[in-house]
């Protein structure tokens, strides 16, 4: 029996159509690793259905085109479909309120991932726009811009320590004038705000690592940036650098 995999944030909808898939002669299985890096799980997939929009933390999210980018980059042979309750006319969209009579014929008619540009908008919050703001911009919404500032200031602070400049002086002459604590708050607030929208995306694991990275250095900032030992012992400079790099890798493809 052929297999159709699916990704969904709710369990009800997939269950509702499970029988139909089986009647059509397809095994209908959830993709268990829902936040994968390119992995073995994906290598086995032939057909994947994304239930759109995603529903997470009481918000509907449209992330199908992010997934499309992911598959296009790593697994271009997967037949990628979306499924939902809104009306859409697309060869790769499965209207759950009007299921096709002949699924094999529908799949036959669907386009391979390189044959179409984008999925039509599924009505949720546009994650691509969020990602764009997360990475780009000079204004109030960019997380990486804020992260870059903090990383720069912390790098300068550590450089100064290496030059044997007493930490109190660095604190007074660099950290305070550059409002480092405030910047950290802004950064972490933005992070908290963005994170829910990025759930269920292909780079979910990386985002979790970034989150852990922020948490590991938070004590220095939350302690008012006054403790030289925390700055060094928590490897703040290096951690921030790592976080930047991880986010840059995601940003290069999706940002």
């Amino acid at each position: 029996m052929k297999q159709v995999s699916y990704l969904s944030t709710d369990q009800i909808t997939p269950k509702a159509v499970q029988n139909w898939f089986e009647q059509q002669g397809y095994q209908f299985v959830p993709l268990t690793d829902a936040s994968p890096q390119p992995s073995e799980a994906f290598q086995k997939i032939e057909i994947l259905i994304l239930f759109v929009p995603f529903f997470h933390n009481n918000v509907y999210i449209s992330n199908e085109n992010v997934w499309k980018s992911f598959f296009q980059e790593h697994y271009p042979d997967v037949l990628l479909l979306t499924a939902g309750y809104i009306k859409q006319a697309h060869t790769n969209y499965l209207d759950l309120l009007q299921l096709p009579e002949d699924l094999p014929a529908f799949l036959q008619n669907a386009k391979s991932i390189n044959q179409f540009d984008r999925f039509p908008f599924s009505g949720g919050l546009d994650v691509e726009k969020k990602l764009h703001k997360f990475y780009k911009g000079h204004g109030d919404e960019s997380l990486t811009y804020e992260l870059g500032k903090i990383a720069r200031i912390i790098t300068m602070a550590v450089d100064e320590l290496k030059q044997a400049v007493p930490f109190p002086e660095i604190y007074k002459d660099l950290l305070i004038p550059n409002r480092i604590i405030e910047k950290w708050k802004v950064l972490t607030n933005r992070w908290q705000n963005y994170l829910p929208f990025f759930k269920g995306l292909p780079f979910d694991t990386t985002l979790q690592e970034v989150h852990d990275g922020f948490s590991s250095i938070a004590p220095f900032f939350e302690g008012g940036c006054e403790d030289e030992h925390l700055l060094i012992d928590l490897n703040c400079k290096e951690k921030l650098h790592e976080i930047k790099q991880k986010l840059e890798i995601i940003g290069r493809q999706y940002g």
Partner: protein
Amino acid sequence: MANKNYNILIVDDDAEFHQQIRYAFRRNYVFEGAINQEHLEKKLKERSDFDLILLDLMLDDSNEMVGLDMIPDLASRFPEIPIIVVTADKKIDTVVQAMKQGARDFLTKADYDFDFWNKKFQEVLQSQSLREENKALRQEVQKHRDQKQKEFTFIGESQKILEIKRILRLVSEEPDITVLITGETGVGKEVAARFLHSHGARKDKPFQAVNLSAIQKTLLESTLFGHKKGAFTGATRDMEGYFKQANGGILMLDEIGDIDANIQIKLLRFLETKMIRPVGADKDIQLDVQIVAATHRDLKDEVQKGHFRADLYQRLKAMVVKIPALRERRADIPLILQHYYPGEDVNEIISPMAMDKLKNYHWPGNIRELKNAISYMQLRKKIFDRKQIDLDCLPVEIQEFNELVDTFYTNGSSAPDQEMAPTSPESPPPPSNLTIEEEHALIDLRKIEQSLFRKNKVKKDVAVELGLENTDNLRYKIKKYFDKHPHLFKDFPLICESYKRIVKLEE
């Protein structure tokens, strides 16, 4: 390595970024800042000698890269100030665009790293310094060329020189003809060769002049034709010779009458084939060099004596230009003198008497001797604190030279002033036990005495002739000498008579 003397202008709307950069690089550079375009203009109006501009591309919240548009204008108005773009955006397109617009380099704010940034600053600053150095060197070279050109200006309006210039102009139209310039030493054979070069088809190509008699015989071949590494002991690398260096242009071989038979053969071969073979090389090199040879010797005579190859002489004498000795064109002497006193009137600088002496002298060393005489006269003028170069300032051999005066007359030139043959009694030679001060005083007093005689004791005229501003200065000079050396005055009756109130000799 960094230099605190470098002034860097940061242009960024983020005041904190200014503070951070100033802080991080405070030991290395001096910073000033501008937060927007208007502020930047103000800063550049105040001073335009910044060594570097760090320019953010986004200078407001519009998300427009206004900085990008500013680069071409800044680069054209201040080409000597390099621009490094420092921005949050690190898209390749933006980088390429910024560089195309004229930015020298690009840094992304998120990738701050002290060493990397400092290296970039240094690279740009040093490349700019190199550019400026190159520019200064180019200017220096140009200045040197101009100076050289000035040194080698073929001065002369005498009939003989005008004719030579005409011939050289005609010869310069034949870029392959070999020219032999003859004339006494110091007549300006190289000047004539350069004149030929500057008027001909090869004027934009090299001009090399080499004095063959000044090069050791053992080194002459490799100096002229070059050598390969290992050709002889001490040949540690390949070296181009004068021929190669002059390729495309003119090679002037001065004192060609002094070269030995071996070099004569090689030179003859070049004149016939236009090929040379560097010492130690196994292949010939084809060159395009026009040869201008020069000598003070009579080559015909040298051929007869067996010192110079007849076939080479035949080749060289395709076009012979003889430069006359300076004494054969005395009318050019004031012109040549004027050349060495640019912006001044030589007739004011040199007294008429001295000028006549200079014109009458036979100048065995020709223009080279005249140039040396000019330096000497300048120095003497300073030593004697004279307004003009007068007889005392002339080199002794010129002062004492009278032989050619008659010749000069017979040549139909203007007669010298009567001062050349003063009718006043010649002053006695200075006693041998005089001090230097006394000797100087004597020279001056003698001159005043002679002038008083010539000018019929009209003090005003004497002062003018001696280059003094007025008669007060003349009186002061006499008083000064009398106060110090009254014993010297007994030999100067006209001074004593004209300045009775000052000069009161004891009976």
